């Protein structure tokens, strides 16, 4: 067990380096010239050249280069684009990845976007990260609350109207895409209840401890909308796992000892039924991260997802690249934690 965790921990940096190389390659090698991409058609050759020089796009791509001569020559480069990008990400005072862009970019509203793109990524992250993190956490809590109890009830009373209702609603909630559900909530909220979602300017994240009401107003509906799909998955899985577990001998023993139903179900059965649920939560974290991009766009929350999207529309390749790497690292780390939790929850699992 301990060796397994240590091995996975040691593997994590290797995966992260691989992921960063891949991210870099996707964005820097496939599309061609990043200077032309950032600049678009509006730029003259001189501007493109200057931009390329300024942002170090003439440097070699990777710090290690391989010449396919006989024998192959491996040489180390001092200054490379990949190395500098990663170094800038890691070293906080050099985090101004987008800082160097000073020429006006085409296709954007000069009023806000340029200043926004000149804000250092670090600055952006400081007030956008809490939004996304809180959205994820509240969503997870809602998903568990809405998923597990109906799943258990539906499993211990199969065939009843309660079971039927929770099964039907789970398949419906599962199928309605979260961004459409968000639009429905906002639209019919405003038509029927004269309610519009609160609009928050960039950087006005309200800490829960400072102003709980505003914070709840901001996060309640987005989290609920994002949570119902996940809750449906959890409910269906809890139900089938519970049905399986309730057939075991030890449950029959518990019944025959005369234990109360509550004890049998919630203490004896649910504990074992939750093991597969944990795995699925791990698998769903990726969906949740993607869902954050969608929901932040629907409810106009200024989180990381919206930031990535704005950067894509602005064609700010460097920001997109860094954020995509960030998403991947969060996802990989979360999966590692879930795997460890899984091994810890279920002593029957042995990782050799």
């Amino acid at each position, binding site marked *: 067990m301990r060796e397994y965790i240590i091995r996975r921990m040691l593997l994590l940096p290797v995966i992260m380096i*691989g*992921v960063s190389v891949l991210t870099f390659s*996707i964005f820097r090698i*496939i*599309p*061609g010239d990043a200077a*032309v*991409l950032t600049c*678009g*058609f509006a730029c003259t050759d001189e501007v493109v050249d200057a931009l390329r020089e300024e942002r170090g796009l003439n440097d070699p791509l990777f710090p290690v280069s391989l010449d396919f001569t006989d024998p192959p020559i491996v040489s180390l480069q001092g200054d490379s684009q990949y190395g500098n990008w990663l170094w800038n990400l890691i070293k906080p005072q050099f985090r101004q990845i987008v800082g160097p862009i000073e020429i006006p970019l085409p296709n954007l509203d000069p009023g806000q976007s340029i200043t926004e793109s000149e804000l250092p990524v670090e600055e952006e992250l400081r007030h956008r990260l809490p939004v996304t993190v809180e959205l994820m956490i509240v969503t997870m809590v809602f998903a568990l609350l809405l998923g597990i109890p109906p799943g258990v009830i*539906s499993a211990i009373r*199969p*065939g009843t109207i309660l079971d039927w209702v929770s*099964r039907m609603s*789970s*398949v*419906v909630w*599962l*199928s*309605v*895409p*979260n*961004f*459409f559900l968000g*639009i*429905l909530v*906002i*639209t*019919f909220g*405003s*038509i029927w209840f004269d309610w*519009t979602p609160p609009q928050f300017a960039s950087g006005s994240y309200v800490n829960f401890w400072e102003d709980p009401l505003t914070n709840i107003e901001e996060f309640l509906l987005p989290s609920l909308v994002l949570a119902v799909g996940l809750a*449906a*998955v959890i*409910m*269906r*899985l809890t*139900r*089938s796992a519970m*049905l399986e577990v309730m057939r075991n001998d030890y449950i029959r023993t518990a019944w025959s000892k005369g234990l109360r139903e509550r004890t049998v179900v919630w203490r004896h059965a649910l504990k074992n039924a939750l093991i597969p649920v944990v795995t*699925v939560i791990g698998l769903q974290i*990726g*969906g949740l*991260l*993607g*869902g954050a*991009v*969608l929901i932040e*766009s629907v409810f106009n929350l200024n989180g990381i997802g919206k930031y*990535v*999207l704005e950067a*894509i*529309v602005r*064609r700010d390749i460097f920001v*997109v690249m860094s954020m*995509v790497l960030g*998403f*991947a690292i969060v*996802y*990989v780390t979360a999966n590692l934690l879930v795997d460890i939790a899984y091994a810890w929850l279920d002593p029957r699992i042995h990782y050799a």
Partner: protein
Amino acid sequence: MVKEVAAPIDVQEAATPRPGRWRRGAFLARQHPLGAFGLLCILVLFGAGVLADVVAPYNPTEESRLTRQVGILAEAVSADDNVFTIDQAETGPGSTILIGEEKVRLSDFIHSEVGDTLVIEVVRGEDDTVAVPHESGEGFELRGAVDQLSPPSLSHPFGTDRSGWDVLSRTIWGARISLLIGLVSVSVGISLGAFFGVLSGYMGGIVDSIVQRFVDMLLAFPALVLLLAIITVIGDEDSSARKAIDDLLSPILTGQGTFWGIPAFVDIFVVSIGIGVAVAVGTARIIRGAVLSLKENVYIEAARSIGASSPRIMWVHIFPNVAALVVVLGSIFLPIAILAESAISFLGVGVPYPTPSWGADLSEQNRENALQGDWWPAFFPGLALSLIVLGFNMVGDAFRDISDPRLRGGQGSGGGRGGVSL
């Protein structure tokens, strides 16, 4: 004594006839009404998509006008006239018509009204509404203004959107686009995934390591984020990848990049390729697992012992055995691909707006209209999207019930890995 031997009686074998295909289908549908409902959703929506040019009442990107005839001009008018007569007038003061190229408003001042003939004075002015006269025999037939944001009615069951486009027609054409993107991306993804899965599983060793580490790295990205990254890269109009796709597709495109009646097909294709790559990653991993156990079979060893080459074994002996799995994976990935396309288009990165895509119809302007109370342009495409995913989920549940005997006997559906979601 005569031994009595029972005479062979001519017995009609009373075997119950094997129920016909249709009857069995009906039986299954009765057993699994939700599955039947799901199948109906899929068939209706995809059927509408395939037959879009026949079924859709209007052109999805053509302004709908209030086609009601509002009157006939008694005689031809020139652009300079400012008094004229309209026969059988259903129009009145305040409405706007077009004379020549100029918009004019019918003034409040009515000169005379005899029977249903209206003599009217016009005022030159600005107005949003446009009326189009066009020549017919004795005079001009007046047609109404662009039918913007009109709520659901008999002539437009789903209403019209801000451009006067019929939402029903757009929803129907959206089904074709979803179907197309689903099929292209799933076939690209499944074939790539099956190729690398079989290769990696059968060859093992260094090939396996390289392919699997690559798959590992791609799986490290959340699916939607990976998709956004791929589409940012290959979707950009200046990128070399986009240009390569342009060249590749140019033979099958007609007119302004139109294919099968769908404009801006290159954008759709780019989105499909992006989704296809994401599908391939998942497929390769699963197929590899199946191949690993498959290649331990004796017949593979036998094939190898008679000197069959590796490509031959993979193609003739391995691939047919995973083909069924490939088809199943395809049916699982199809709704996911459709959802992914909608999500991407909703974010404004996928299929561009004038092309009728369910996801794009949920975004930007339609969303703002919805906020102001005009909910129909965004609602119906979203409903269609939800129904198709619902259909696949219900069919999937029913299929699992039918194929897993442990679940029979009233315990019903709702298990497995949880169904299709993004």
